[in-house]
């Protein structure tokens, strides 16, 4: 009943938007903004922003519609955050970027290699942002991204080092903290994912954390059903049904219904020749039963490209019971790109627009919920992230 009330309350704020859409693109060589018109038929690419910088994530604050944060580093220079308060026209560096605390004399302290993920805070907490880093760290800004502090409840949690497997071999670009999700009913209820490390939950604003991985496979760990150590690639919480979580993991696709804390594999229903391995996962803004994934080849040595070189999104309209292939307009063969975990997003129009970016520098979009795809931009650098910004004009 509480959930139904929540749905009705939130539904009014999640009606379909009709204004222009912009795609915020983070790439290995800078950021770009791809602006579409109201019909989403015509797109215009901006000049590169911070050309040559590595941009892992570029996000608009939906609470004011003007502030953007961008997670940046270069091959030489350390990590930082740039911010814009005029929808990307001008950029200024954060005064105090995310950094771990100074270690005690004689001890080795953690060093932020790069900021990987940016999440605006709860709608009621204007100016609050969260950032996830590699190595895995959680940071919070209370002033719209100007200054950042570590969330000690996670970064200094007595189990953190074990959770993130500190000192062990991790993913090629380093373990990352991502999928920072805020429960729309309660700003103190926060989830986060660590790749690799697992999925975690805090009920007290980040002061304490507990693993939430039951039911999720981790077939690279010899222990059956381990408490942590899993490899979530992308986790999404549905804003209209906050007790429902979807999860694209290294070991398949899952869904969880809270308060029960057990992942149920929904990827077994994908075609066997495609499998249920991939990185991104996107939700329909108004239908909690609808989600999109973009499968990658997770066989043999894990090529992490579209199976058989035939890219396709897959959509479920029934919370993972069945999946339908969506490849109209996409290359029919010999397309060997990867779609990274932050590089797929949805707008809130009717019908919903779905967008993804590739490691070969293309942006693809669909104005009809994946039924037909069109290449919106090409020849960009390797794309790390795609986010949607709904503009008022």
């Amino acid at each position: 009943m509480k959930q139904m009330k929540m749905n009705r309350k939130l539904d009014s704020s999640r009606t379909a938007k009709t204004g222009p859409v912009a795609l915020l693109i983070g790439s290995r060589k800078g950021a770009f903004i791809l602006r579409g018109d109201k019909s989403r038929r015509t797109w215009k690419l901006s000049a590169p922003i911070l050309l040559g910088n590595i941009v892992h994530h570029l996000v608009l604050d939906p609470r004011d519609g003007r502030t953007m944060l961008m997670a940046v580093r270069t091959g030489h220079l350390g990590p930082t955050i740039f911010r814009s308060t005029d929808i990307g026209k001008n950029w200024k560096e954060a005064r105090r970027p995310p950094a771990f605390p100074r270690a005690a004399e004689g001890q080795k302290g953690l060093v932020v290699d790069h900021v990987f993920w940016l999440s605006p805070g709860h709608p009621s907490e204007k100016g609050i942002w969260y950032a996830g880093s590699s190595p895995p760290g959680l940071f919070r800004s209370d002033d719209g991204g100007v200054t950042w502090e570590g969330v000690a409840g996670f970064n200094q949690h007595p189990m953190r080092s074990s959770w993130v497997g500190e000192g062990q071999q991790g993913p090629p670009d380093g373990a990352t903290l991502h999928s920072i999700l805020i429960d729309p009913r309660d700003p103190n209820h926060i989830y986060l994912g660590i790749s690799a490390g697992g999925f975690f939950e805090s009920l007290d604003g980040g002061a304490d954390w507990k693993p939430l991985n039951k039911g999720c496979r981790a077939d690279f760990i010899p222990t059956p059903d381990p408490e942590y150590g899993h490899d979530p690639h992308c986790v999404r919480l549905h804003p209209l049904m906050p007790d429902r979580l979807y999860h694209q993991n290294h070991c398949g696709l899952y869904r969880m219904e809270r308060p029960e804390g057990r992942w149920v594999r929904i990827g077994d229903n994908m075609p066997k020749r495609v499998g249920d391995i991939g990185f991104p996962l996107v939700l329909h803004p108004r239908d909690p039963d609808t989600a999109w994934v973009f499968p990658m080849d997770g066989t043999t040595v894990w090529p992490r490209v579209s199976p058989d070189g035939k890219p396709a999104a897959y959509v479920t309209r029934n919370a993972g019971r069945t999946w339908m292939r969506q490849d109209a307009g996409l290359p029919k063969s010999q397309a060997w790109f990867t779609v990274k975990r932050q590089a797929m997003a949805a707008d809130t129009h009717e019908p919903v627009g779905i967008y993804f970016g590739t490691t070969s520098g293309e942006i693809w979009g669909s104005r009809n919920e994946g039924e037909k795809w069109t290449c919106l931009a090409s020849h960009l650098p390797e794309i790390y992230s795609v986010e949607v910004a709904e503009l008022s004009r």
Partner: protein
Amino acid sequence: MRVFVPTPLRAYTGKRAQVDAEGSTLGEALTDLDRRYPGFRFRIIDEQDGIREHIKIFINQQQVRDLAVALGGDDEIQVVCALSGG
């Protein structure tokens, strides 16, 4: 003392390739640079006071690895971005 600034850091120094700094150690000089050019230090020195992996610092053409190294007024600091990336 004079500091030679590599191109990736000149966004902080108003495109200047050479700037002045004061301090009796390398650490103090970098703190002074950060006061003059906010953000400069953290891009080359990490939060544990380590020189970042792809940054090299030379004093009078001798590479240094410790921020505690003493400086004189006539010393020249050269910040160099190592060859890396692609």
